[in-house]
């Protein structure tokens, strides 16, 4: 009703035209330091790792390796245990992504207006995000064993294969929902109040206002939160490492990579697993990000 679909800007100038350089050159220069660091510590190591993934390199303290072609990749893609780690990772990501976003959005809806009380509650809700992942995991392992298990006489989810992923996801949700809340609050505060007033005049109900104004205009916040949490979820490592190291059901792809490269003297295989993981992560985050960008509307 209020929002209109964003029209794609039509550029008639070539990418490196003087016009584009004049308009975007300054911005690009600001981005350059971060870009250089990103290239140096992410992109170059990633591409340097590809040749190793085509070898049977054993230990990282050894130089000996034999070229094995795509054998590491074919082995991994047909390996039950590696695929299981993907399944575990996806399960974790799904619960974490939904939980943190739903709770974050719910909190944002309650707390988005500024008041002293709301500001305090927001700070409290955001505080877990400042705790380290390992710290959060260890604290929660005690919450599970000493509080929840004692109160309800149940096993700690971290000691139960069928619940361990959920147990870890709860820790991650607790830690990151405050972050999601802040992004949603920023999104809610940027929606002009006139839209709601106009909708009210038109007789729109609360549900209709949320459906037709709030949610469409919050899409950029969804894009940010969902893409980021998707990436964080897919590369989860600290939680299982800290509190479920021995549970097969908690083994994620990054743990598989870590174990093979550093622990099991199968660095070539581990490198191939790392590359597969990165590619999957890249495809999924790009797809989700694009999907949400298409849904974005302009206020």
């Amino acid at each position, binding site marked *: 009703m209020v929002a209109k679909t964003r029209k794609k800007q039509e550029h008639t100038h070539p990418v490196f035209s003087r016009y584009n350089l004049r308009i975007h050159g*300054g911005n690009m*220069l*600001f981005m*350059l*330091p971060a870009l*250089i*660091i990103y290239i140096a510590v992410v992109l170059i190591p990633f591409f340097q790792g590809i040749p190793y993934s085509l070898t*049977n390199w*054993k*230990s*990282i*303290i*050894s130089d000996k390796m034999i070229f*094995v072609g795509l*054998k590491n990749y074919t*082995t991994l893609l047909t*390996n*039950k*245990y590696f695929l299981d780690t993907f399944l575990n990772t996806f399960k974790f990501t799904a619960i974490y992504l939904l939980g943190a976003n739903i709770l974050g959005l719910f909190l944002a809806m309650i707390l988005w207006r500024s008041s002293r009380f709301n500001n305090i509650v927001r700070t409290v809700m955001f505080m877990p995000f400042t705790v380290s992942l390992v710290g959060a995991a260890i604290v929660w*392992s005690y919450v*599970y*064993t000493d509080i929840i*298990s004692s109160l309800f*006489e*149940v*096993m*700690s989810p*971290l*000691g*139960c*294969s069928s619940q361990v992923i959920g147990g870890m996801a709860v820790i991650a949700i607790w830690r990151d929902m405050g972050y999601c809340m802040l992004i949603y609050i920023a999104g809610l505060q940027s929606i002009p109040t006139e839209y709601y007033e106009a909708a009210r005049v038109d007789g729109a109900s609360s549900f209709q206002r949320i459906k037709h104004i709030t949610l469409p205009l919050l899409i950029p916040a969804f894009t940010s939160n969902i893409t980021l949490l998707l990436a964080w979820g897919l590369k989860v490592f600290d939680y299982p*490492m800290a509190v479920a*190291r*021995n*549970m*097969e059901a908690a083994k994620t792809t990054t743990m598989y990579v*870590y*174990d093979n*490269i*550093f*622990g*099991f*003297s*199968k660095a070539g*295989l581990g490198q191939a697993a790392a590359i597969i993981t990165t590619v999957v992560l890249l495809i999924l985050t790009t797809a989700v990000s694009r999907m949400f960008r298409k849904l974005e509307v302009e206020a």
Partner: protein
Amino acid sequence: MKKLWALMLVGVMMTGILTGCSSDKTDEISTKTETETTTDAKSETKAETTTEPIAEDTDKEAVIQVFHYMTQETKRTGLEAVEAKFQEKYPNVTFENLFYNQGTDYFPQLSTALASGEQPEVIMGNPGLYPDLITEGYAMDLSDNEIVNSLNLSSGDLGDVSSDGKIFGFPIDFKTWGVFYNVKMFDELGLKVPTTQTELMEVCKKLEEAGRDPWIHAFADAVFGDIEMRNTVWTRALQNGDNDIFEQLMSGDKKVTDYTYIKEGLEVWQERMQWARDDAMSNNQDKSLELFVAGQGAMLYTGSWSVGDLVAKIGDGDFEFNFFVAPIDDSNSQKLNVQVDQAFMVNPHSEYSDMALKFMEFWITDGALIWSENTQLPLCTGVSSDNLLPLIKTIAEIKGSGTISHYGDFTKPFSSEFTTAWRQSLTSFAESCVSGGGMTPDECLVNMQALFDDIIATSY
């Protein structure tokens, strides 16, 4: 004007980055920062000299970096005590102790350090467990070391620190495992130390009838499933002459079902787990000790490495514990399992390897009792003192008598990957027993073999 400011700002930032990459001075600063950060993460502790130095043949300055995985506080204190004593002889030697958890990141951190050119002087670990260090030359060959050869160590002790017939480590102390029990609780209920599996089951039933939990478990730490199995597997394997069991399983020439006593071990363990508490899977070692000392369970299956921490947790409290080897059948055929616990390699590539060698020679001889008294760990050399707990002395005496199953008598230890697979399948079995999942020992063996087969299939 605005644009000019923006460009100048970008220029400053770029200069900062580029100089950060090239300047020698900045390199120094960044290295220092990195060291400081790493030091924090690694819980570095530096031993300090508190006594007057004794004049010795050398005033050479050296920094000995000790890479270790001593999780227990008492061990770290013991290490510092040995270092301090050594510093009395060599006042210009300082120590840098780098601690990582063995179960999670010890070897990864060590190999990363070595791959990046760092060369720690002393590396903790049984050489057989870290074959890469041997093949890549990061452990000094000690086969001709006079001190090691003069100690008359048993073949098992030497086997535990050897690889392909050569000695690569200093074996300091040994560990064993079994049932630690609450003496007061046993006395109150008139229970006797069981010597057979049936007697042990009777003890459990009586404890249960008296409203006491018979067992505290700590299966969140994978080693606890492993040690509950070892008593049967090691004892039976060595009795049957299967000294190459681990080598055969790793090569794939034999399957776990070829060794019937692995299933037997699972069945014996399963019987004990009838009385597992709800927290059995989530307790780690530390938590299990707390629960045991708090009297929440009558027995705790753990290793001798826990004794120091157990004593520390008891403090001035009124708690008495003792130990027995868990029965594995009704024929009283259980034996004390023995494995070298603290073993250390000297890195020949390190800057101060000569001083590190002297330090290790000191530790295994003059420093050994300081270590043992601090940690309450029995020494491989058999040397003992009145400051050790009677329990530790008894364990040392049993080892001395030779009626033991020693890990060092196997031809090869499990590699870290096989150990992980072995422990993972045992943890799954424990979980099933604790939660009533119904996994049978046969199913556990199928899972275990599948994991082993996968390791073999991905080793090329």
